[in-house]
């Protein structure tokens, strides 16, 4: 299926390039009076070519001279014969080999006639003829085999030219280039020779050592194409060298050899088809908490999995054992602190190409977007997918500063290149598909629910009731005032059971310290406070969640992304809460306005005000029977978050 899609794309692209090239060529013939009907020859030449001699012997050239209307017919056929091929190619009709064979034979005949009548010198046109053989087949394997043959022929043209110059000693002949220039440009030199180009030729003729260097450079450039016989990894470099050669040939020798450039098409394609082995490379920066589900699925669907990630992310990827232990088939390549992001990305792309990976998933892309976008343009064989954390930031352009400009351009390129997306909420998937029509966007949670990790899940644990507020203490993202006021309301009731408030985020920042001070003023016998400084190790983080009775995420529903795009929690971006919930099947509180996804509905409860939140705590958290019932419901609902239920969606994500 993969190869088939690729073949259709490659064939259509060749159809477009080839016939665009072909008609430009014919029109250039027309412009320079080189069509047979324009030339209307009265004699033919023998050019010491056996095929041409056979054609002359057939009597056709002589007959055409006697019947000049035949030249018009010949030109008309050259223009019209590709039409059935193009029609057949784009209309996707039943394939017939006849138009292809007729075209190949006629193209060869037309070039032979051109050479017989006006010395077209068909060397640069041969690649055009050979490529036309691809119109005689519709088998993917045969198509690619013919392209491979054309590729080798194209390389041969250059290498052969270099070998001739070396073997016949011209490259060792002092003043060779000077004499070639003199002979080749004699018609220009005879005249006034006032143009800068003509004066440059004179200067080169008068300075044989410099012109010899040019000749030597040309031979080296031609010889470079020998690399292509041993590896395809430098094909695009060789294609670029071919372009340079053609430009240099035009400038120095006044030989317009541009028609040979159609031969670079197989070089741009690199290898035919996608890699046979399914191997995925995952790139992650700091959102490692979202990786577990992806890695579980990658482990199941791919023969090889490699994760490029930061050192910190690697160490905190899992709270249970090492990442290698949890995903034994995955390899981890760690970005050390002294390795910058561009260098690490460079290593990633080199690794990807060197080891022929079929898939690349960008789990987080928050730096060097333009670099990544440009590199992806040259990775057409790799299936690329991306996790979108913030939809507005990814889809809405911003032109405020230089970085915004570069990232907006990069995102435009990424929109064209990446058509498969992963998000953390079903609503985000729908919105992204609206924003990027035709793309595939799938919802896969950060991790799968593992009930075994919550021993005693349904038991109403004794007080103190542990209310955990996960996430960094950031007033831009969370409204801690709601919790503060709710606790004050509860504390005013002497019957309130003891509570432990766990601020599960770094409180050592200036903003965090202010929030902490506010809560410390409430602390006493019935309210204890637990807080952390610095980064919380994953094991500790998960441990706190596992013993929580309630999660509370006092989100500011509307927030600004790091690039100042306006985002809405539950719609354009997901909170880390959805990842945390699956670690502990306890109820969670979120403010009204948060778009609660159905799949998390059993666990997420909204509140309009501190009073509303206090009521919930009294009715559910402090009520043993109600609390136990809630957790049973949550547990049943969370069985939905199993690997089996998301395998299909993951396959959509990685399917080409």
């Amino acid at each position: 299926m993969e190869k088939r899609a690729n073949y259709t794309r490659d064939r259509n692209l060749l159809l477009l390039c080839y016939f665009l090239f072909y008609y430009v060529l014919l029109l250039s013939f027309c412009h320079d009076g080189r069509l047979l009907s324009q030339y209307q020859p009265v004699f033919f030449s023998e050019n010491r070519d056996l095929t041409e001699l056979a054609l002359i012997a057939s009597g056709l050239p002589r007959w055409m001279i006697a019947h000049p209307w035949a030249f018009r017919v010949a030109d008309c056929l050259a223009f019209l014969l590709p039409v059935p091929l193009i029609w057949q190619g784009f209309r996707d009709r039943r394939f017939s080999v006849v138009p292809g064979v007729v075209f190949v034979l006629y193209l060869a005949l037309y070039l032979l006639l051109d050479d017989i009548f006006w010395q077209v010198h068909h060397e640069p046109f041969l690649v055009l003829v050979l490529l036309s053989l691809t119109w005689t087949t519709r088998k993917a394997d045969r198509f690619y085999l013919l392209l491979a043959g054309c590729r080798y022929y194209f390389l041969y043209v250059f290498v052969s030219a270099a070998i001739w110059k070396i073997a016949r000693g011209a490259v060792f002949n002092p003043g060779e280039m000077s004499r070639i220039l003199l002979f080749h440009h004699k018609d220009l030199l005879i005249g006034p020779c006032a143009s800068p180009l003509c004066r440059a030729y004179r200067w080169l003729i008068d300075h044989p050592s410099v012109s010899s260097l040019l000749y030597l450079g040309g031979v080296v450039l031609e010889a470079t194409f020998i690399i292509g016989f041993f590896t395809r990894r430098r094909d695009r470099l060789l294609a670029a060298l071919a372009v340079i050669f053609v430009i240099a040939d035009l400038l120095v020798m006044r030989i317009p050899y541009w028609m040979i450039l159609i031969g670079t098409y197989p070089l741009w394609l690199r290898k035919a088809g996608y890699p046979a082995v399914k191997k995925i490379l995952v790139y992650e920066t700091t959102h490692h908490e979202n990786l577990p589900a992806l890695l579980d699925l990658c482990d199941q669907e791919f023969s090889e999995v490699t994760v490029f990630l930061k050192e910190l992310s690697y160490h905190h990827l899992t709270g249970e054992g090492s990442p290698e232990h949890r995903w034994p088939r995955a390899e981890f390549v760690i970005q050390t602190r002294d390795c910058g992001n561009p260098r690490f990305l460079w290593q990633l792309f080199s690794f990807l190409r060197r080891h022929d990976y079929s898939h690349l998933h960008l789990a987080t892309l928050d730096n060097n977007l333009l670099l990544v976008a440009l590199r992806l343009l040259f990775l057409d064989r790799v299936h690329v997918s991306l996790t979108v954390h913030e939809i507005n930031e990814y889809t809405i352009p911003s032109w405020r500063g230089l970085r915004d400009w570069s990232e907006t351009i990069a995102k435009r390129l990424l929109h064209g290149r990446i058509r498969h997306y992963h998000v953390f909420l079903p609503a985000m998937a729908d919105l992204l598909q609206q924003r990027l029509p035709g793309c595939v966007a799938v919802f896969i949670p950060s991790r799968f629910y593992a009930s075994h990790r919550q021993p005693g899940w349904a038991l109403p644990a004794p007080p103190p009731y542990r209310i955990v507020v996960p996430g960094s203490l950031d007033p831009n993202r969370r409204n801690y005032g709601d919790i503060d006021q709710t606790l004050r309301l509860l504390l005013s009731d002497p019957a309130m059971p003891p509570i432990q408030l766990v601020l599960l985020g770094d409180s050592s920042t200036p903003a965090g310290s202010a929030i902490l001070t506010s809560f410390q003023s409430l602390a006493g016998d019935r309210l204890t406070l637990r807080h952390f400084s610095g980064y919380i190790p994953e094991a500790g983080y998960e441990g706190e969640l596992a013993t929580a009775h309630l999660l509370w995420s006092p989100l500011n529903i509307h927030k600004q992304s790091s690039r100042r795009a306006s985002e809405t929690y539950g719609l354009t971006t997901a909170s880390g809460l959805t990842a945390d919930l699956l670690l502990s099947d306890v109820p969670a509180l979120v403010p009204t306005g948060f778009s609660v996804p159905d799949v998390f509905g059993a666990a997420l409860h909204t509140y309009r005000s501190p009073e509303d939140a206090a009521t919930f705590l009294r009715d559910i958290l402090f009520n043993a029977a109600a609390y136990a019932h809630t957790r049973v419901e949550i547990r049943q609902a969370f069985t939905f978050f199993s690997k089996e239920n998301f395998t299909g969606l993951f396959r959509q994500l990685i399917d080409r």
Partner: protein
Amino acid sequence: MAADPKPLTHSRKKGLLALMIGFFILQAGFDLAHSVTAFPFVHYGMFSERFPNPESLPAFEILADDRPLRAAGFGIYRWDMIQQPLEAFDRWERTGDYAGDKARMKTIFPGLYALVSSHLDNPPGLATTFPGWYRKYLGRLLGRPVHRLRVEKLSYGYEPFGIVVLAKSPWINCD
């Protein structure tokens, strides 16, 4: 456009490969032979021969209605199309309508030559028809009728101070 997903059979693939390898061997063979080619087996040895220091540079001086045509005034291909018929006609004249090649063919393949010899000759009277044809052709290229055409064969020498005419002989004169 739907593609045929059925893979090629092994023998077919091998056949195509053999065909391609054969093509390259023939190509290399013709490359080595060099003096003769057989399209599509051509050689890419241009500018590889050792160029001796030219004693003189042959060229055509074309005067259309007494005005000389200069390369600098035309595009590369356009100038090529002005020069090329003259070179071809000159070659035709010098070789006596490629008499040497025909004689060789007659020696090697007498039967075949007898069969096709009438097709190998250019139309009779070319020496007289060519000047008139070329004058009209030149008129089409220049976009104006040429009433008086003169072509001279010149021989130039390259000196440090410039190009000098070494010899000059009239060739085509057509009014």
